[in-house]
Structures are given as structure tokens and as C-alpha cells.
């Protein structure tokens, strides 16, 4: 198996609720369940449009439940990190009294043997409610709603926003070409892969030529020069975000490696005041010594510290214009 890189991505969303979903979430803070009229039907949870005709629905809300009847269900023996309960529970479609559609939520029945189609359930409210679908802790067998411990919420402002936060851990394979490219930068080399069809050279261990769609393998590897010319630059005024260590404006340059068509983007330029950064500057790669390795920015390529001006006269090659990225 290939080595994989693990990364966990969080998805923290804030959503506006509007007049229909907002009304439902506000009702939850008051331990009420509401539906919306659509012709002869009452739809729960309320939605903005008729599910069959897509007609916009008037804000005609109806109290439903709080008890209801289980129409169908499943048993979750091993809850996930996203599930509302950490102990085994049921997910069920519950037809709340007075509703014509089914409401999806958890049922905390203790055991699969306590579950059956047609059973009666009622909500167990959270003590502190914020206007969120999880204000219902779960449904429980029986007719009477309950509240977890002491009831702390008092009806307040209408709820207009809700939060959602999920995290997913991904394991992405590291291809053999990427492994070899990373190894090269550890050793102070830039490894290129030259397309056998068009002759373009790629860095970063790309596995294929995106122009010709041919696979690139070790036989296409070339060692690239360590000198180049600045073809483009930007001065970045740092804003503070997690991981940002810069506090003063700093430059990032694009470097066109000599005798190749490779442009390395967003490289650090060393020992150069921002006012002196210019297109055409000649630069050379500086690699960290073994002793310096610990200080290298972990986001950098291997042990590349950055690029140092060589002092050579600036390039005036007009083709620099075509090498800005």
C-alpha cells in the first residue's frame, strides 16, 4: 500500500434560517413542535415549498405532537461521531400527532427489542435549547415529553441562524513520483519530470503530463537547475490566521528555472527589502544545512530555505512576460 497523508477537514457552517425554518427552530426553544399547512396536509418539519407542486407556502403554522407514532426505524448499534447519541439508539420516521408527513429523529429506547413499528414516542428535550434540531435530545417511548435534568431555557429572541460543524478525516495516497520528488528536495535537488511527447517539464512529482495525458515515470526524471529568474512577485500584508507567523509585509516570487520551462510559484526571497523586489532578478536556491533543518518552515519544499539574489545583471528576456506562472 502507498503511504497516505492524513488530514482532518472541519466544515463549520453558519446558516440563515428564513421565516419557515426559523419559526420551527424558535418553537423548539419553547418545547413546541410546529408544522406548516400545505392544502389539506400539515408538513412536519415545515418547509418553504409544497414538495409535490413546488408552490410557495403561506406562513400558516400548526402545533403538532408532541407525541407521535413510529412509521419505520433502524437500529444504530455503533453510533458515529456525528450521531446525536453515543449509546446504541434507533433512527426513526415519526408521524407526529396532527402531521401528515414523517419527522426524522433519534429514538432512545435502550434496546432494539424495545423498538417496533407503530410504537408511540414523545420528545425528550434538552435542558438548554438554542433553536437547533438537536434541541430534541431524542424521542423516548411513551406519550409524555420530558426534559433532561432542569429546564434552563427561557423563550427569547426569534432564532434566525444555526450552526453546523462536522469533521472528516481523509487519508490521501502519496504516489511514487511524489515520494521521489520529496526525497530529492530533502537532498537539496529539484526533481523534474519531462513529458516524452511535448517536452514540458513538471515538478512536485506530477504523475502525468496534463497537456498530453501521458503517464510520467522515473525514466522521465531530470535534475533541474538551481538558478533562475524572477518572473513575477507579490508583496503580502499578513492577516492573522492559524499558522501565519509573519507580522510584516513580505514578498513571494515566481522563479523560472534556467534552461527549463519550470516556474516555481510563491517562493521566499531572502535578504531583499520589499522595495528592491523586481521582475528579472537573478536568484539561486538556498538549502538548509543539517543543523538548520529544524528551522525550515514546514510548509516549504524539503529543505529549501528560499532564493538569494546572485548579483548578476537582471534578465531582460522579453519571454519573461510569458512565464508569470
Amino acid at each position: 500500500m502507498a503511504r497516505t497523508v492524513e488530514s482532518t477537514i472541519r466544515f463549520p457552517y453558519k446558516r440563515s434560517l428564513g421565516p419557515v425554518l426559523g419559526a420551527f427552530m424558535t418553537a423548539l426553544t419553547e418545547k413546541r413542535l410546529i408544522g406548516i399547512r400545505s392544502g389539506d396536509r400539515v408538513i412536519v418539519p415545515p418547509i418553504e415549498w409544497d414538495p409535490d407542486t413546488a408552490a410557495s407556502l403561506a406562513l400558516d403554522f400548526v402545533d403538532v405532537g408532541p407525541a407521535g407514532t413510529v412509521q419505520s426505524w433502524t437500529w444504530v448499534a455503533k453510533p458515529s461521531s456525528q450521531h446525536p447519541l453515543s449509546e446504541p439508539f434507533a433512527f426513526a420516521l415519526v408521524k407526529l400527532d396532527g402531521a401528515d408527513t414523517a419527522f426524522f429523529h433519534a429514538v432512545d429506547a435502550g434496546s432494539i427489542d424495545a423498538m417496533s413499528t407503530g410504537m408511540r414516542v414523545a420528545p425528550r428535550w434538552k435542558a438548554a435549547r438554542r433553536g437547533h434540531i438537536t434541541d430534541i435530545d431524542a424521542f423516548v417511548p411513551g406519550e409524555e415529553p420530558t426534559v433532561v435534568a432542569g429546564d434552563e431555557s427561557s423563550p427569547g429572541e426569534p432564532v434566525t441562524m444555526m450552526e453546523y460543524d462536522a469533521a472528516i478525516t481523509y487519508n490521501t495516497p502519496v504516489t511514487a513520483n511524489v515520494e521521489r520528488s520529496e526525497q530529492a528536495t530533502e537532498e537539496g535537488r529539484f526533481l523534474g519530470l519531462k513529458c516524452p511527447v511535448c517536452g514540458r517539464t513538471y515538478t512536485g512529482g506530477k504523475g502525468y503530463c496534463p497537456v498530453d495525458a501521458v503517464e510520467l515515470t522515473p525514466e522521465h526524471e531530470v535534475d533541474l537547475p538551481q538558478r533562475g529568474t524572477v518572473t513575477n512577485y507579490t508583496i503580502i500584508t499578513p492577516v492573522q490566521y492559524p499558522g501565519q507567523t509573519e507580522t510584516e509585509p513580505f514578498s513571494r516570487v515566481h522563479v523560472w528555472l534556467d534552461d527549463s520551462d519550470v516556474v516555481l510559484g510563491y517562493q521566499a526571497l531572502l535578504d531583499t527589502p520589499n522595495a528592491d523586489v523586481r521582475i528579472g532578478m537573478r536568484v539561486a536556491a538556498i538549502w538548509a544545512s543539517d543543523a538548520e533543518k529544524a528551522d525550515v518552515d514546514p510548509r516549504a519544499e524539503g529543505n529549501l530555505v528560499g532564493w538569494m539574489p546572485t548579483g548578476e545583471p537582471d534578465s531582460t528576456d522579453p519571454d519573461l512576460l510569458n512565464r508569470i506562472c
Partner: protein
Amino acid sequence: MVANERSADDIAIVGWSVSPMVRNTDKTEVQMLLEVITGAVNDAGITRADVDFTCAGSCDYVAGQAFSFVQNIDALGAWPPKRDSHVEMDGAWALYEAWVRLLLGDIDVALAMGSGRSSTADPGLIYPMEMDPYYLAPLGADATSFAAIQARAVIDAGKVSEDAMAEIAARCRRDAKDNPHAQVTGDFDTKALLAEPYVRAPLRKHDLPPITDGACAVVIARRDRAIEMCEHPVWITGFAHATESHNPGMRDLTGSPSTVLAAKAAGAGDAPIEVAEIQAAYTHEEPILVEALGVGDAVVNPSGGPLAANPIMATGLVRVAEAARQVRDLGKHRTLAHSTSGPCLQQNLVCVLEGGSR
């Protein structure tokens, strides 16, 4: 049928390729696509440069990367520039868009693809994020829990039983023995399957699709180019899709009205269907779909179907490739492919294929 029955606007499948279907591939999504695109254009006897329009089906949540479809374009060969599109749906819907694009008449050849590397993360955590963001996603409402709720509704309605579901799983895995791309194959005793514990009651492991990495690409062409390219074009004679409410609680889960609509719009019932390749990823979905599609007399999923390999985002397009294979390579006259999207068969697509005349 005779040749003049085909109009210039008729569109045919002229090539395809299906990747190996595995639990965990060393390849990136781009590499999987690179292979199936090469395979499909080779199968059609053309090169990437002959393709006028491309459309991909893939999912950023599955890939774990924003705009992951942009780097997938690398697999197409970016030069000469192509008209390109993407759907955050199964590749079967990418094929639908490509078909609609060719109907405009100004270009002749299109390629649709679908790809997914489901092993990258836990599907049980990914799919809740694609549910209703207000009422369902915050509960971690996963696709398998919804499937189980639908299974119980269908069982309670007397349309299927746990025994019959085990029979469906065993049949699919047995049929998949002849499918070189399949992931889960072999002979299984239904009694042993039924002795296994529930994953989500009433669903056991055999009722669920495997987690699969895979990709598929299909090339289509307008009549004149299709006839130039190949001996046996597989004509798309009907293509439609329809959808229902995204919230399963608003629906009758014992049937699939949107499948009925799509099948009617695609003309599925106009003549007998010999083989139906359907995206029944859970065993109980098969009887629902067979009834809704009206294909009770057809051979269903001779490839083994999604219960043998389920490359999310390509599973439906693989159904199209398998249904086309039945026509071009196995001599069938009229077959059907089905794809689905969303919880409890929310949205359904039907593609009717015919061989015979050029």
C-alpha cells in the same frame, strides 16, 4: 430496423472503459481517470483530440478537496482546449449532460466520466453532509440508516423479506464471478448470510454495497460520426431523470414515483427490455426499482451490480457501460441502465439503449 430509422440527431455510445474495482487503490483519482479515459477513447478508435465536449461526475466531499474536479481535468489532456463541464453527481448524470450537449447539433463527440476514491474517508461520515443541512445533517443522518428505514417500510408493505434480500445479494455476488471488474464475488449460502448480525436492522452486511474505489468513462457521438467510428453503435433511444423531495419523511418509501416518471419519459415500456443494469446499492432497492421500471421480465444486474462493486460517483455510469456491453458485445437488442442519487432513491435516471441498425 433499417438504417434510415436513425436521424442525424440520434446519439450512440461508441466506446467505454471501466477501471478495476477495489477496496483501496494506490492510485489518485486523476490516475484512475487517466486510465479509463485512455481506455474509452481507444475503445472508440479515436484520440482525446477528437473529443469536443467533456463532462465529469465527482464529489469534493468524497475527495476531501475543494474544486477536486479541476485537477481531474488533467486526465483529459488539456490541449487542444475542450468545452468542459462537471456535475457533483454520478457520472450517469454527466453522460446525460453530454447527451443534451450533443443534441444541440454543433459538435459530434463527447466523453462522460465518473470517479470516486471512497476509501479516502469514512462514507458514513461524508454522506450526512449531503443531506438536508437544517433537519438531517446535524443528526448525522447517514445513507445506510435511511436505506434501512426504507427497507423496513418495504418489508412491512410485504414487497420483500430479509430472506429474499439475502437471495438478491447471493445472486449478485454469484453473477459477479464472470465480471472481471467486480470486487465482491463468489458463492454464498443465504442461511449463513442471514446468521450475520445487523449493521442497521433490518440490513446486514450483505444488504450493503462494498466501499469501492473506481472510475468509468463513456464516449458518445452523433449519428454520422458514430457510424464512421464503429461497426455496432449502441443507440441511446431514451434518456430522462426525475426527482422527489429530498426529505424521505415526506415520501412514500414503498415505491419510487420518480423512477416511474423517468422510465416513462425514456420510453422504457415501449418495447421489451432484455437486460436492466440498475443502481440498487442496497438489496431491498432492487424490487422497488424493478417494479417502478417495469422490467420484471428482464435479467437484472448480470454484472453483479452495485452489490458487487460500488464506486460512488461512477456506479451509475458503470451501469450504462454494462448495459451497452450487453448490446454491442453480447447481442442483446434493447437494454436499460438506471442510476440514482440522494437518500432512499430520491432522484432517478433511466437510459434506454438499442442496437440493431446503424
